[in-house]
């Protein structure tokens, strides 16, 4: 057993009705499997929001970036990277500037 801390922002926070929560995991889990559990828990609108796409540097990109312990997880590694007990996972929109 382990626990993963999740942080939501912007619309994801509104849909989930909370800014953060803790998820129990029985074994190290991929980002994809964590997202699947969250969609099950918070409903299809949560999934639709997470699947939004945006244009960044002229490339089609996911609108929400996933960070695990401060490190961005590329789309190509969402299935492979394992999230372990005590990790912090953030979902941040792509907005940027200053």
């Amino acid at each position, binding site marked *: 057993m382990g626990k993963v801390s999740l942080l939501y922002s912007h619309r994801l926070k509104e849909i989930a009705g909370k800014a953060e929560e803790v998820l129990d995991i029985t074994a190290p889990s991929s980002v994809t499997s964590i997202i699947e559990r969250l969609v099950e828990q918070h409903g299809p609108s949560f999934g639709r929001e997470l699947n939004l796409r945006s244009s960044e*540097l*002229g490339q089609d*990109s996911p609108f929400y970036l996933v960070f695990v312990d401060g490190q961005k997880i590329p789309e190509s590694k969402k299935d492979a990277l394992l999230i372990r007990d005590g990790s912090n996972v*953030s979902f941040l929109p792509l907005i*940027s500037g200053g």
Partner: protein
Amino acid sequence: MARFERNILYIDLPSGDSSTEELSPSLITRFLGGRGLNSKLLFDHCPAGADPLGPDNPLIIGAGLLTGTAVPASSRFTVSAKSPLTGGLGDANSGGFFGPEMRFAGIQHLVIRGQAERPVYLLIEDEQVTLRDAGSLWGQTVRESDTAIKRELGTDEVQILLIGPAGENLSPIAGVINNLSRAAARGGVAAVMGSKKLKAIVIRGTKGSFVSDKDKAFSLFKEIRESLAPDPWFQMFSKTGTPGLMENYNNGLGVMPIRNFQESYRKESSSISSKEFLRLFSKKRKGCYHCPIQCSHFYSAGADWNEEGIEYESLGALGPRCGSFDLAVILKANAVCNRLGLDTIGAGDAIGFLMECHQRGLVSRQDADGLDLSWGNGETILALLHKIAYREGIGDLLAEGSYKASKKIGPGAEKLAMHVKGQAIIATDPRGLKAWGLGYAVSSRGACHLRALPVAEYSASPEVAKKLWGTESAADRFAVQGKGRLVKWCEDLRVLSDALGLCRFFTRTTFLFPEQLARLIPCVSPIEFTPDQLSRIGERINNIERLFNLREGLTRSDDTLPERFLSEPIPEGPSRGQTVDLESMLNEYYEARGWDTETGIPSPQKLRELGLVEEMSGLKQYGKG
């Protein structure tokens, strides 16, 4: 249809004489306009070693090549001068409506020379140029002056660029304001305007805007609008404006400076979130000229506190940086800065610096005119802003900016001044975003995030990073490898926005790239560019700015960061434990630029390649400090 008219208007303040020169196509094809051509004009018209607050320092205002056209988000203009803050190149960029009005008057650049004997304002009505007495305006706030000028002229149909008391009092952290709240605030350009006793520039243009091929242009603009509308980035930014960045930079990345960068993360910061801003203070959205995004807001923080804004940078500088999480106080402080003509970043930095000096026993309450310098004290923050603008008491010291103030306070204070080349650092901690740190260090105008705006280091995929910058780690925010190439790449593209007069939030799209810009420009200009030409222009502008700074005595040793970022790890949050390894990034950056890695001086070969042959005449003398 309006004709394509591009002029430089020269004003000699002592005599009141003016002359107009048509811009040569060769200048446009080498530097475009806006920041690009301003930097070239500054290089040519500012003698080496000129006193920034003396008569030889020209004040140059440049609309971009596309400013005021039918191109979306084409509101931007740049104010340039030798900086009294850095001693090198100074410029500040703003949106609003002043830049487009310049273009409607047929003017792309204004070069203002000399100093008036008494306060004046400049009135431009198409070809008619007059200097008018501003004795009664001197000492008035931005709002009071704006109202008085419009009353005197009997019309609201003018655009006004103004300084407030802070600029009049030659504070290098003063800002130039248009539309009451849009600020060109960096680099001390308002102090240069104050040194010329030039209270305002008032402009009215009636010539309209040139379109080459109306059908082609509007078809392209329709395509642009249709691509922006469904993109969630634009939907979110339209709603929240830049305050929406707070959640990302604080909770998500842990790079929001708190208490003068002693911390960069606070678990609970909802009191200053965009949600609270929208819920409690925002009244309606506001946009600049011809903007489909409209990211600004009108807000009210009380009966006398109706204002426009607030931007993330102002929120960060006047809030957490000074230890305040009280949004009402921050919004009032933002309004005070607009009204007195202060740079919110420079002012917040100076106050945060003073509060840390007090925390460490370097400044007493008595030194600060009896003010309580506890972190986050709202009354103190508001009082200090007034003192800075009017140079009263401790405000006289802070009005010079944190770096110069630290020299006067003495041992122990200098390392608390969070600046590069004398200019205050913005509200993003570079320890958690390494490319931003490099960008601050090498920026030609001192600490600045907009020169490079290397958001790609956390937004790009590893595959894109590998393709564009040679290594996947360029897209890893904690890594240093690839960041030199990334920052150089970003700087050369971003400067095109500044030279064309386009907003950064529009050019985050494919219109960041020369290929797309080359499609856009011919719609509203008879001059066409190839993508290669545009790429070369971006690099040329960055190199002429480097040459200006070298000529003024800046060296590689000025391309650095405060010691805190190099040696003190971020204590908490998602960027915990991070510092900046600047040297390796700097070397990679110089190599990517074709600059000498030991001196940071561009190679003759690079300058010849960019057609900067005349400008390289003093090269052998540069870099000696």
